[in-house]
C-alpha cells in the first residue's frame, strides 16, 4: 500500500466500525463500568441503597468468616468438578457412539438434546419431583416391593449437591454431545482410513489422534461449561432453594440474598467481586497461554 493511503486506515470499513459503536459502548459502560462500580461499592457499608461510605475490607472479612459463604464455595467446587468431568466424558462418549453411522441418529440426537430446550427452573422442578422421597423414584421403587430402598439426595444435607448435579448433567450433556459431534464430523475421513490401514485400534485412534485434533472444540466446550458452573443459581432455587438448611447454597445465591433480602448491598457486592476474582484466576492464565503464546510462535 502506498504511503498516502495509510492515514485513512481508521476510516476503512467505516460502516462496520460505526455499526459496532453501540456494542463497544455497551461493553464499556455496562460490563466494564458496571464491574468497576460494583468493586468500588464493595468497599463501602451500603445497605439498601448504594452509599459512598468506605469501610475498607470489612465486607470481605465478614464474607470469609460467614459459614454460609464457605459452604457455598465448597458446593461450587464439587458441582464444578462433577459437571466439568461428567459432561465432557458423557458428552464425548455419546457423540462417539452417535458417530458410528448408526440408524436413527437424528432421533437419538433429538432425544439427547431435548432437555437443553428446558430452562433450569423447569429442569429443577422436574428433578425435584423425581427425587422427592414420597412421589419420585424412591416412592415408585418402594411401591414395587423394595421397601427399604432409599434415594432422597435432596433431603440429605451431605449429598444434596450431588442431587443437584444430576439435574444439571441431564440438562447440559446433550449440548456438549452436539458440540462434540460437530467436532467429530469435522475430522477428515482419510485420517480414519490411514489409522485403519496402520492397524491402530479404534479407542487408541480416538484418544491419541482425534481428541488432540479436536482441541478448539474442547476449548469452546470448556468455556461454555465453566461459565455455566459459576453462574448456577436457578437450578438450586428450583430444586432446594438452598436447603436442607443451607446445605446446597451457591455463591450466586448468596449474592442475590444479601443484596435484596438482607438489604445489604455492600456484602452482596463483596461476594460478587470474589466470584469475579475466581473467574479471573481461571481465565487470565488460560487467555495468556491461548492468545499471548501464539503471537510469539
Amino acid at each position: 500500500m502506498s504511503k498516502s493511503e495509510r492515514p485513512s486506515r481508521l476510516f476503512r470499513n467505516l460502516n462496520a466500525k460505526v455499526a459496532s459503536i453501540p456494542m463497544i459502548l455497551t461493553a464499556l459502560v455496562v460490563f466494564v463500568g458496571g464491574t468497576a462500580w460494583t468493586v468500588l461499592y464493595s468497599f463501602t457499608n451500603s445497605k439498601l441503597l448504594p452509599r459512598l461510605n468506605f469501610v475498607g475490607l470489612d465486607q470481605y472479612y465478614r464474607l470469609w468468616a460467614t459459614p454460609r459463604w464457605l459452604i457455598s464455595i465448597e458446593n461450587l467446587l464439587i458441582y464444578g468438578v462433577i459437571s466439568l468431568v461428567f459432561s465432557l466424558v458423557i458428552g464425548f462418549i455419546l457423540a462417539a457412539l452417535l458417530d458410528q453411522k448408526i440408524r436413527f441418529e437424528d432421533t437419538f440426537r433429538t432425544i439427547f438434546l431435548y432437555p437443553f430446550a428446558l430452562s433450569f427452573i423447569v429442569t429443577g422442578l422436574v428433578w425435584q419431583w423425581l427425587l422427592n422421597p414420597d412421589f419420585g423414584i424412591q416412592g415408585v421403587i418402594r411401591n414395587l416391593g423394595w421397601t427399604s430402598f432409599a434415594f432422597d439426595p435432596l433431603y440429605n444435607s451431605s449429598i444434596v449437591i450431588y442431587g443437584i448435579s444430576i439435574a444439571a448433567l441431564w440438562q447440559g450433556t446433550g449440548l456438549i454431545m452436539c458440540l462434540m459431534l460437530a467436532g467429530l464430523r469435522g475430522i477428515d475421513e482419510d485420517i480414519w482410513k490411514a489409522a485403519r490401514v496402520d492397524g491402530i485400534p479404534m479407542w487408541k485412534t480416538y484418544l491419541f489422534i482425534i481428541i488432540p485434533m479436536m482441541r478448539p472444540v474442547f476449548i469452546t466446550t470448556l468455556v461454555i461449561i465453566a461459565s455455566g458452573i459459576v453462574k448456577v443459581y436457578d437450578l438450586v432455587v428450583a430444586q432446594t432453594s438452598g436447603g436442607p438448611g443451607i446445605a446446597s447454597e451457591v455463591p450466586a445465591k448468596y449474592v442475590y440474598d444479601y443484596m435484596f433480602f438482607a438489604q445489604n448491598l455492600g456484602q452482596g457486592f463483596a461476594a460478587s467481586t470474589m466470584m469475579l476474582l475466581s473467574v479471573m484466576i481461571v481465565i487470565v492464565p488460560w487467555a495468556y497461554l491461548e492468545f499471548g503464546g501464539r503471537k510469539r510462535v
Partner: protein
Amino acid sequence: MRYKLLTAALAATAALQFAGPAAATDLEVTHWWTSGGEAAAVAELAKAFDATGNHWVDGAIAGSGGTARPIMISRITGGDPMGATQFNHGRQAEELVQAGLMRDLTDVATKGKWTEVVRPKSLLDSCTIGGKIYCVPVNIHSWQWLWLSNEAFQKAGVPVPKDWNEYVAAAPALEKAGIVPLAVGGQAWQSSGAFDVLLAAVGGTDTFLKVYKDKDAKFAAGPEVAKVFKAADDARKMAKNTNVQDWNQATNMVITGKAGGQIMGDWAQGEFQVAGKTAGKDYTCLPGLGLNEVIATGGDAFYFPVLKDADKSKAQEVLAETLLDPKTQVAFNLKKGSLPVRGDVDLNAANDCMKKGLAILAKGAVIPWTDQLLSQDSQKQKEDLFSEFFAKPEMTVEEAQKRFADIIATAD
C-alpha cells in the same frame, strides 16, 4: 432498531394494562398476601376502597415477604412506584423513607387523629421517622402462638398440652402414633421465627429484650439463653420429619392431624378458618406457648411512595383513611386472624383465639418484634443460622449459641 421495537411493544402492553376503564382513579397496591385466608382478607380491603369510588388494582406477589420485598423495593428505587405497598412495619422501609421515596402522611394522620385511635402506641412509633408519619398500620400480627391439633393428640392418647413443656413431654407419644410432633416448614424464616418465639416464651420478656433490643452479646452467650437453645434443640428433634417447605403446608399438616402442632404467627388462624375448623374444638391455641403470655406488636402496614400524578396522590389519601376505618378494620382482621390496630372497634364476631389475643393486648403485655428491633441484614444472618441448625442434627447447641452471640455482637 430491534431494541426500539421491543421498547415500543413493552410500552404498548403497559399502556393497555393501565388504561382500563379509568373513570375512577386506579391505584395499584402490592402485597404478599396470597394464601387462602390472606387473599380473603385483602379482598375486604379492596372492597372498602372500591366503595369510595376509586379502583383497587391488585398487585399480589406470591412467595412470601422475602420474595416480594426485593421486587417492591426495586420498583420504587427504579422509578416505577406503585400506589401503595405492604411492608412489615418497622425497619424494612427505613432507608426508602430516608431517601425521600416515601410519602409523608402526617397531614392525613392529624386529620384522622391517628395518635389517639391507634393502639398500642408503639405501632405508630414504628411508622414515625424524624417526627413524621410514613405508614398506616393495618393489623397486629404476633408470632407467639402454638397451634395444636386436638385430633392428633386424641389419636396419640394424650391430653392436649397446656404449655410448651407438656408438649415436649407428649412428643414421644405422638411419634409412636406416626404423627410428626412439630411442623416446621423448610423456609428459613420459619425456623428463625420459631426460635424468637421460644426466646420470648422460655427465656421471658426481659431476656428477649436484652438480646434483641440491647444487643448484649455476652448475655446472648450466657446461661439464660442456653436454656432457650436447649428448647430449640427439642423443637428441632420434634420437627425432623416435616418434609414441607411453605408455612401453610405446615399448617395444613396440623389441620389434617398429620402433625401435632406448629409454632406460627396468628396468620395461621386464617388457614384453620378457611378449612372450617373451630377454635377450642378442632384445634387449640396457646399464646406465648402457654409460658409467657405476651404479644409482639409486629404486623403489616401500608407505605405510600411519592407519586407525581395529583389524582393518584389524592387516591392515596383516601386509601390511607379507608385502611384505618373501623368497619374495614373489623372486616379485614376477622378474615386475616390478626388483631385490629384500633382499640375502639367491636369484635364480638372474633373467635376464641382472637379473644385471647385481645385480652392480652388489653392487659398491655406487648413486646416489640424483631422486625422493629433488627435490621434486615441481621435478620437474614439469623435466618441462615437457624435454618442450618434445624436441618443439621450434627450441629451442637453450643456451636449454634456461639454463632448466635456473634451475630448479636455485630447486629444493628
